[in-house]
């Protein structure tokens, strides 16, 4: 009798809306919306990746073989816009949607209908952005940073790009509001802030960054729009304005933006490493404070993207010191991860491989970042491939690797099936090796003097460009293996248990796999032992 009742109970909670339209287009379910974001992000990742391959194909050899310079510039611009706003950010939002309510024992996000709109804006925003490639004048070609006056030399793409960015911004802001409201109001009783999973902390802080800076981007691009169409001169010196002001406003958004793209990654890695080391995260409170410090500092370093613009010396000094300072809490986090695995009992399933790969390779990106902070040295690095190498290390081997780690980590919870571990490991090793072949030589190219955003170069730069392109194609095609693995796992595979991983701790691992459509309709009773950070002594 009890079993039948329980079955009926589960069935009731697993009842999904019937019909594709009802379930997916009108979804108010955090799990389904999470899935929508993740699928969208994966598609955008492949689109952005294809653009990157066009870039690398042209740069395979000196001379112009495949595309004209105008189109090349459209590719570099769109590649960045698609990857940043279409792949990385939505992927992290998808992870937040899926996991935050589960981790805090909440039945859903605080504002489920707004959640739906946050997602569904995105396909339209990107439809508009990608459409620019097909209108007269082509897509935006002034770099994703949209500096005027160059960006205003575009044709139809200027207005379209700006509207697309506005749409993305609205989506992000609404999503961030939802996350904060959910985390602050809907934690199950007993889930104190300093007992929350670190992924939740990472997203709480990231959400504040989003609300603070997305409106600034909106302001900056609106000023571009009015300069182009409504006779303002915000950035036009002839009218009394200043092109450099755009850079200040843009990077005031832009720098916190890159932390928006990495803090959730830190959260993911801080969940995975303790699980596979079978040892609690070292320095949980220090990790929380370090994350908060990084977020705070991220607001006062923006002009390190502008060291060659002609800033007064006092400005250069301040931004140099502040930027160097950010290395400190970031270093603390790396030391804490290493301390977590020290004297652990590790196994190396695919999520752990990606997480450890993250720690090593993100740190390399962090080192080049510290080098870039040194102003006189930056005079030689700025706008060269050294910068390109830096940000691809922190964004690809950093953010993207953490997203893949998260996908492998949580796919069994989402789908109810274990992914194929052998294929997963193949994906990791192919990616980890090829990504270094792709980006490490770019450090040398930058130091040797190769500027950014050029479709052709002197023969002295040929060798490392060729190597980089080979790495690029290898990396790109390795991601098709990931797509296959995800698709295969969604369709079937070895059944996953609720706990999935031996060392996994947290509320999300107490619900069945796949997680029922509705979970925690009644708040769970929390026993500190269930939590990864239930012990408040640390």
């Amino acid at each position, binding site marked *: 009798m009890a079993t039948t009742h329980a079955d009926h109970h589960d069935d009731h909670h697993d009842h999904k809306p019937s019909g594709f339209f009802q379930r997916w287009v009108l979804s108010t379910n955090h799990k389904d919306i999470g899935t929508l974001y993740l699928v969208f992000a994966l598609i955008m990742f492949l689109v952005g990746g294809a653009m990157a391959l066009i870039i690398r194909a042209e740069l395979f050899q*000196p*001379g*112009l073989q495949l595309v004209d*310079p105008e189109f090349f*510039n459209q590719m570099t611009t769109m590649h960045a816009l698609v990857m940043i706003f279409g792949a990385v950010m939505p992927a992290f939002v998808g992870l937040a949607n899926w996991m935050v309510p589960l981790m805090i024992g909440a039945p859903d996000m605080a504002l489920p209908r707004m959640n739906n709109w946050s997602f569904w804006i995105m396909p339209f925003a990107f439809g508009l952005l990608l459409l620019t490639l097909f209108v007269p004048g082509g897509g935006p070609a*002034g*770099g994703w940073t949209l*500096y005027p*006056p*160059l960006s205003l*030399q575009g044709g139809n793409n200027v207005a379209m790009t700006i509207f697309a960015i506005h749409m993305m911004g609205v989506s992000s802001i609404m999503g961030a509001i939802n996350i904060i409201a959910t985390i602050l109001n809907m934690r199950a009783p007993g889930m104190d802030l300093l007992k929350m999973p670190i992924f939740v902390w990472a997203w709480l802080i990231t959400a504040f960054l989003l609300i603070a800076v997305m409106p600034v981007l909106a302001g900056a691009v609106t000023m571009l729009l009015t300069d182009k169409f409504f006779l303002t001169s915000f950035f036009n*010196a*002839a009218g009394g304005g*200043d*092109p*450099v002001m755009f850079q200040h406003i843009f990077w005031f958004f832009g720098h916190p933006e890159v932390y928006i793209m990495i803090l959730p990654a830190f959260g993911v890695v801080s969940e995975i490493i303790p699980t596979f*080391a079978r*040892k*609690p*995260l070292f*320095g*949980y409170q220090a990790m929380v404070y370090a994350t908060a410090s990084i977020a705070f500092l991220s607001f006062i370093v923006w002009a390190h993207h502008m060291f*060659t613009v*002609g800033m007064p*010396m006092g400005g*250069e*000094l301040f931004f*140099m010191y502040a930027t*160097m*300072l950010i*290395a400190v809490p970031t*270093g*603390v986090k*790396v*030391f804490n991860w290493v*301390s977590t*695995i020290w004297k*652990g*009992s*590790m196994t190396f399933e695919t999520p752990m491989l990606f997480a450890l790969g993250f720690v090593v390779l993100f*740190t390399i990106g962090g*080192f080049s970042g*510290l080098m870039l902070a*040194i*102003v*006189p*040295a930056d*005079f*030689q690095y*700025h*706008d060269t491939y050294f910068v390109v190498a830096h940000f691809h290390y922190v964004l690809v081997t950093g953010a993207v690797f953490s997203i893949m780690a998260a996908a492998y980590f949580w796919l069994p919870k989402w789908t109810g099936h274990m992914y194929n571990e052998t294929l997963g490991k193949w994906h990791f090793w192919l990616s980890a090796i090829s990504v270094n072949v792709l980006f490490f030589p770019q450090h*040398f190219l930058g*130091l*040797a003097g190769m*500027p950014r955003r050029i479709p*052709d*170069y*002197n*023969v*002295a730069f040929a060798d490392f460009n060729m190597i980089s392109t080979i790495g690029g194609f290898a990396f790109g095609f390795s991601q098709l293996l990931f797509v296959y693995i995800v698709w295969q796992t969604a369709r079937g595979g070895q059944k996953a248990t609720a706990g999935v991983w031996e060392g996994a701790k947290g509320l999300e691992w107490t619900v069945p796999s796949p997680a029922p459509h509705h979970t925690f309709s009644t708040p769970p009773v929390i026993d500190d032992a269930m939590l990864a950070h239930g012990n408040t002594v640390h």
Partner: protein
Amino acid sequence: MNRFNRDDGMKQSFGIKVALSLGLLLMSAMAWGNPEPWQLNMTEGVTQSAAEVHNLHMIILWICVVIGLIVFGAMAIAIVRFRKSKGAVAATWSHNTTAEIIWTVIPVLILLAVAWPATSTIFRMADTTESEMTVKITGYQWMWRYEIVNYKGQDGQLNFVSRLDRDSDQTRQRGSGKNPADVQVDGENVYLLNVDRPLVLPTDTKIRFVITADDVIHSWWVPVLGWKQDAIPGVINESWTLIQKPGVYRGQCAELCGKDHGFMPIVVEAVPPAEFEQWLAAEQLKLDDAARTAQNTASGTSPAKG
């Protein structure tokens, strides 16, 4: 010809050669003027500024290498020793406030140690006073204009545009059939790094630059001088240099400025001051000649008035 001795000696010296070349490659930068194939490191340049910049670069690079070795070394040891498959049993400790303090304070001290020389270099590079010459640089889509505004107290009266050289320009067209490797000057490949009229400058002279642009943002960069400066429409930026060695130095625009951003290079020909003054005088004579010719032609064809 003792075979044993020869093998032994060759092995030793080979090993030494490998170590030396690796060391040299990694540790030193070449004082090359222009990029070299397989170049790994930043140029030491031909100015005091460039040398200081290179120095700072090496300091911060070595610090990162050492920290990296420590961190990655610890990880490697952990990954080998603390495996479940080897029977490792996980410890239960999870925090240590002393450790947190130590690895917060030590990095701050390291950063202070780097910030000090970096600050003094910034001060030196910002000081454009007491220059003997002023050159105005203007960035255009897609070429540079150079004006010798003032040389040792005299007005320069030299103003010319410097564009990508014809050979490079023809070669870079898609489907040109020409090989970039063939664009050479004196046996050196100068594809996309050559111009029709270089900027000739005197060595051992403090030269002040005023830099602006006419249309969009560009950036003027010659790596061996040790700096780059953005050329921004409506803004006049200042820089200075003091070239210690004569030579031909090549650079590129370093701010995306449209379709031919990659095709507006910079060539500086640094010559001893005496040679520079000769060049300047010759250029000015050419200008005077041209002006006189224009005047004569004009007065010859137009009817005299009054």
